[in-house]
């Protein structure tokens, strides 16, 4: 079997995400975003600044990475923790196929639970500007998939992937990203914000060329997936001795 994707792993992946309580959170996050957008629109009306802050501060910075973290950690970490990943690995399938199939499921989660809700929230907030919602939707999609690749890599490198992922989001992307301008060169959220800027004609990040942000996103996705596959090729399954 040398296909890029395995339908069986995709199917199992979908069931494993929604077979756990974490799956429910995936529905809650986008609902919160849309509910808040409706609230903002009702209270403030059609306001460019308010809309921008809601979709960036809540959508791109919080919801998108959290959806990525939930989807990815539900896909890989539990199976690695309890050893059941050995049933996927003890098969004549390329490890990269396993990773690609799992990331496809994660990317689908990003579309359904992050990109589309962000797009909808954008349409709610700015009925006058279609590009606003589209830009944020596209940024959410690209940033979300990049986050999935990062978290997938964390899942195969450490048993504390969720905790480390959260710390990374809070400290690097959140705290330091807000304080230090230089972080934009190494920040998935800022790269995706640059994408939003271009499509929606906004100014979320200053002085970050699109010609840098887009390749950087692509590189993170490819390198994260590749490194995850490489680690799975050398997966140690040790007993309870």
């Amino acid at each position: 079997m040398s296909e890029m994707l395995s339908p069986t792993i995709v199917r199992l992946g979908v069931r494993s995400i929604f077979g756990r309580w974490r799956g429910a959170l995936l529905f809650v996050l986008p609902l919160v975003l849309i509910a808040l957008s409706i609230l903002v629109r009702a209270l403030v009306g059609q306001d460019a600044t308010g809309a921008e802050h809601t979709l960036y501060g809540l959508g791109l910075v919080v919801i998108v990475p959290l959806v990525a973290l939930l989807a990815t950690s539900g896909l890989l970490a539990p199976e690695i923790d309890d050893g059941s990943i050995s049933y996927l690995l003890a098969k004549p399938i390329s490890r990269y196929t396993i990773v690609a199939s799992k990331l496809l499921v994660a990317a689908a989660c990003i579309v359904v639970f992050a990109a589309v809700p962000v797009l909808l929230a954008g349409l709610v907030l700015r009925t006058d500007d279609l590009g606003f919602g589209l830009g944020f939707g596209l940024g959410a999609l690209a940033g979300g998939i990049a986050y999935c690749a990062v978290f997938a890599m964390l899942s195969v490198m450490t048993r504390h992937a969720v905790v480390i992922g959260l710390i990374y989001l809070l400290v690097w992307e959140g705290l330091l990203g807000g304080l230090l301008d230089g972080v934009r060169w190494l920040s998935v959220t800022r790269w995706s914000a640059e994408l939003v800027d271009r499509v929606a004609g906004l100014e979320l990040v200053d002085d970050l060329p699109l010609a840098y942000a887009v390749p950087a996103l692509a590189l993170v996705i490819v390198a994260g997936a590749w490194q995850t596959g490489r680690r799975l090729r050398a997966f140690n399954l040790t007993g309870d001795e």
Partner: protein
Amino acid sequence: MSEIRIDHVSRWYRNVVAVNDVTMTIGPGVTGLLGPNGAGKSTLIAMMSGFLAPSTGTVTLDGEPLWRNEQVYRKLGLVPEREALFDYLTGRQFVVANAELHGLADPGAAAQRAIALIEMTDAQDREISTYSKGMRQRIKMASALVHDPAVLLLDEPFNGMDPRQRMHLMELLRTMGAEGRTVLFSSHILEEVEQVARQIEVVVAGRHAASGDFGAIRRLMTDRPNRFVLRTSDDRLMASVLLADASVRGARLRSEGGIELEASDFGRFSEVLPRLARAHAVRLHEVTPTDESLESVFSYLVAQ
């Protein structure tokens, strides 16, 4: 006919040696990997199934390396020790998924065959989360057998099985061995191993301690000299008295006190020692077996 060859393999975790210079060949038929808990059995099976790299040495299946070589799983089935499965699937869905992952032409039929073989047909449509320990063990077996592998590795497969399931699994393993498959299972219980395995490999403290059929291993155990350290109220007297007995092959006074003793006939020695000590009014403070290798382990295994 397939063969796993382990050639001068060691494996250590940081500075702890789990497997120490082991060389063995696992051929067709049923082989039992026997040893106490923590002897390195799971580490060996992990290396034989491509889930762990040896620190030194090579592990091969029919000449092919097992590490970083997913193609070996075409002819290898693994039943891991850990219980975790895809609990949200039914037994049948799980086995079918395994068949699909192997790229079998008719996954449904292959799954039915494997499920029937391990007698799980009645429970196949229940969710795995409702399964008992023994049922989990059997559905794991089905998933490992679904592609009809030439080599089957099982890590502690009898754990958690009731006597009837145990008998059935033993029968199944014997049949598979008789069909010319290479079957290896690990156990810390001698009684299990001797009932199924044609060949027994004993692992103790990471070393390959013995190899052969059950008779050969029992002979090896009883023929070996037993070593002890004694601390007594009069070492010199006790040593000379013991040396006069036929059950003792050698005695040496240690400079730090105590006697190093080698007994050739353990049964007789254990009977003679207290008798002689009392007859000569020597007090025994300590009798410690120092040869930790085979016979102490063997008695441990037999006592299980």
